[in-house]
């Protein structure tokens, strides 16, 4: 090797950035390049001859490298860390070198600085870790998101459930109130109605006093039920207002009329001021307006002992379409203190609990008034001074109209000329049937009773009526179904008034939907009943005259009518014959026993035989007069009074039953013959 070549080799070695060391067999450094000096931070001189292993953090490992090289002849990518200023990680590659004879002289080792590689590796790992973490975070985020979704879903479900629950609660509350209303009103109807009926009879002063007390309590209870129902309707958002034309002046006058006697009785002065500029006919809800004024005036009357009550109605503003009217009710009563005045419109509040004891009332009146006014877009104000009086005023805006009011709600006075009105009462409760009978008899109307819709329809097909009073809740066929049937199947326009104890708006809408003309709330107010019947009958076209004559003719010529049997047996001739046979077998015996009982004054026998006769009258279609007569005889016989009146009635019953037997014998033979012909 010439000098130039070795110079060249040397310069290559020196140029290498990787440390390059030659060791002798003892592990002492023989030679090195510049990079080695730089990396170890020592001079070449210091390094030469020094122990190779001293320059590494793990000298044992370094020794192993050295041993490995000499054992195997080479080493590849052996990692070690050089002790220098900053512990440089390196990978060793080395191999032994030999002389020409093959004797090992030493080893050449190249250490590759892997700081950068390590850094990159570390960064890569960091990046990987970071990425992994990110992935985990993402996963976690997804999980959280999923959890959130689940929670959100649950929340939605909960909310929905809550909403359903709330809706159900409202519904069941409505249902409950509707039921309660019915359950309470029905017996109240009977209580108040019969009390009224009894009050018309001859009574001692004491009896009259007690009955009046019963009636007043009943009326109070009805007011309470109505109040609660009204508030419940407001709560349920069910309060709806009519937009029908009505005569404001007449309507208010009629309503205030109710108070005149009460105010006179208390020796108060009643001042009414009505602004003549108010348009005659307006669109609105006259019933609700009544309710508001009624509540305010009755409060005024209740809390005023002396002085006057002023009701004034003023036109505030008028546009071509609208009229804004202020209503005010002022009294000279006990007044309301400033501390209480804010509370009087709350539910169950009276100015003081002691007022409730003295003056009665539910404390719901003003709450309802406020709701009624505000739901119609109005405002209500109160001014009051203790011991001086109170003024309640509210402002409502009404639409103007040219339409002439169709519904005259003014109470019609009893008109003696209107008689002969034939009313069909459809009602299942015996007590209510009796009550309606009593009322209609008082009016002088003809009436028939049907216990359910089905029977009503049967009756309608047999006889013509002017008007139907229809209970809604009945067995077999209810009022809605019956009305629908009458309107669609019978094609009849006969006026139908619903009798309802259930005045929730739901039902009223249903009444109209099936084609009822009007409704009356139970307990029935006889004046309203009368005016509604007259109003509707007048409006309806009169029924053809000849038809009623025909029915009367039938009544005159024959005392029996097999229509009922036809219906019950579904016109089965054999069943009809069986029924007639039973009647013909039984009746003569009963008549004999009755005659015997009467002649021998055996009232027990008389009562018992008459009792047995009673059901057969209606079965054989005989006039109800005879059945009623029989019932009277039975009553007299059982109580053994008015025995003088019995004679004629027993004779009449005998006569009609004998006639019935003759007629039925003929019918029986007719049936038999027609049966044979078939």
């Amino acid at each position: 090797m010439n000098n130039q070549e070795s110079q060249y080799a040397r310069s290559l070695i020196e140029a290498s950035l990787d440390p390059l060391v030659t060791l002798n067999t003892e592990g002492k450094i023989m030679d090195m390049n510049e990079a080695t000096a730089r990396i170890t931070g020592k001079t070449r001189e210091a390094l030469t001859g020094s122990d190779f292993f001293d320059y590494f953090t793990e000298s044992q490992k370094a020794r192993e490298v050295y041993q490995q090289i000499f054992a195997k002849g080479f080493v590849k990518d052996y990692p070690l860390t050089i002790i220098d200023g900053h512990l440089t990680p390196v990978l060793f590659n080395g191999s032994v070198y030999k002389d020409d004879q093959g004797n090992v002289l030493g080893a050449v080792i190249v250490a590759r600085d892997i700081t950068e590689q390590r850094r990159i590796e570390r960064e890569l790992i960091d990046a990987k870790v970071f990425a992994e973490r990110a992935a985990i975070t993402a996963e976690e985020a997804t999980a959280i998101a999923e959890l959130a979704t689940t929670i959100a879903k649950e929340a939605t479900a909960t909310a929905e459930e809550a909403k359903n629950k709330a809706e159900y609660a409202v519904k069941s509350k409505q249902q409950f109130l509707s039921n309660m209303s019915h359950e309470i009103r029905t017996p109240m109807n009977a209580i108040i109605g019969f009390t009224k009926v009894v009050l018309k009879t001859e009574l001692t002063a004491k009896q009259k006093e007690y009955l009046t007390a019963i009636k007043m309590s009943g009326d109070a209870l009805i007011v309470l039920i109505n109040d609660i129902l009204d508030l419940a309707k407001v709560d349920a958002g069910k309060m709806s207002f009519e937009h029908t034309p009505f005569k404001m002046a007449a309507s208010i006058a009629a309503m205030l009329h109710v108070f005149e006697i009460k105010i006179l009785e208390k020796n108060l002065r009643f001042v009414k001021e009505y602004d003549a500029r108010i348009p005659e006919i307006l669109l609105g809800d006259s019933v609700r307006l009544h309710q508001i004024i009624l509540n305010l005036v009755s409060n005024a009357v209740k809390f005023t002992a002396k002085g006057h009550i002023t009701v004034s109605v003023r036109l505030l503003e008028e546009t071509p379409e609208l009229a804004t009217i202020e209503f005010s009710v002022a009294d000279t009563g006990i007044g309301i203190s400033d501390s209480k005045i804010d509370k009087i419109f709350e539910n169950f509040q009276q100015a003081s609990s002691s007022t409730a004891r003295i003056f009665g009332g539910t404390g719901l009146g003003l709450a309802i008034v406020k709701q009624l006014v505000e739901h119609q877009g109005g405002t209500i104000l109160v001014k009051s001074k203790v011991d001086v009086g109170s003024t309640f005023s509210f402002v409502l805006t009404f639409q103007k109209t040219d339409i002439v009011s169709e519904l005259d709600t003014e109470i019609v006075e009893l008109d003696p000329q209107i008689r002969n009105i034939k009313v069909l009462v459809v009602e299942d409760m015996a007590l209510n049937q009796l009550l309606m009978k009593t009322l209609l008899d008082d009016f002088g109307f003809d009436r028939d009773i049907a216990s359910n819709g089905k029977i009503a329809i049967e009756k309608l097909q047999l006889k013509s009526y002017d008007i139907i009073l229809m209970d809604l809740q009945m067995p077999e066929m209810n009022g809605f179904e019956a009305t629908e049937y009458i309107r669609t199947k019978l094609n009849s326009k006969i006026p139908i008034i619903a009798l309802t104890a259930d005045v929730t708006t739901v039902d009223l809408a249903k009444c109209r939907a099936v084609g009822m003309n009007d409704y009356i709330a139970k307990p029935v107010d006889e004046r309203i009943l009368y005016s509604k019947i007259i109003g509707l009958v007048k409006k309806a076209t009169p029924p053809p005259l000849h038809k009623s004559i025909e029915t009367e003719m039938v009544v005159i010529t024959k005392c029996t009518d097999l229509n009922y049997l036809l219906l019950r047996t579904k016109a089965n001739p054999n069943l009809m014959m069986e029924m007639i046979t039973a009647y013909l077998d039984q009746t003569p015996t009963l008549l004999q026993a009755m005659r015997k009982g009467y002649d021998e004054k055996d009232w027990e026998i008389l009562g018992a035989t008459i009792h047995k006769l009673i059901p057969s009258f209606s079965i054989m279609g005989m006039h109800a007069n005879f059945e009623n007569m029989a019932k009277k005889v039975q009553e007299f016989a059982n109580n053994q009074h008015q025995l003088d009146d019995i004679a004629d009635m027993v004779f009449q019953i005998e006569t009609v039953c004998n006639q019935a037997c003759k007629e039925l014998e003929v019918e029986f033979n007719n049936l038999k013959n027609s049966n044979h012909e078939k």
Partner: protein
Amino acid sequence: MKNNERIKLFLVDDDAVYLKLLEIDFLQYADFSIETYPTGESCMKNLTHFPDVIILDYHLDGIVKNAMNGLETLRKIKDFNPDIPVIMLSSQDSIEVAINCMHNRAFDYVVKSETAFFRLRKIITTIFHYKKMEKELNWYVDRM
């Protein structure tokens, strides 16, 4: 009650016309097995026919003197077998009669009117509903 077995009704009334009408009504309504008796005595004699329900008139002693009245018959039926449901019928709409009937363990009380049959029908449905519930209850009680 097995489903395939017909419901056996006893109708007891001395008013032959009403009895017939009721029988016709029931037969038209469903496939009942009906036995009619004009007196309480004849009803008692035939209790061995095992009626499912008895419909009994309150006034059975009307014409025939010393005949058993409805209440007596009701008591005797209940002595014979307290489990036979008895529905009382009367043309009297009186609370007193109703209370008398209920005190003597009648299942219900119906006034003879246009709706009597519908009411009876409803009551009979109720009776079988109760019977079914009782049966179920017994089934559970037996297993407890």
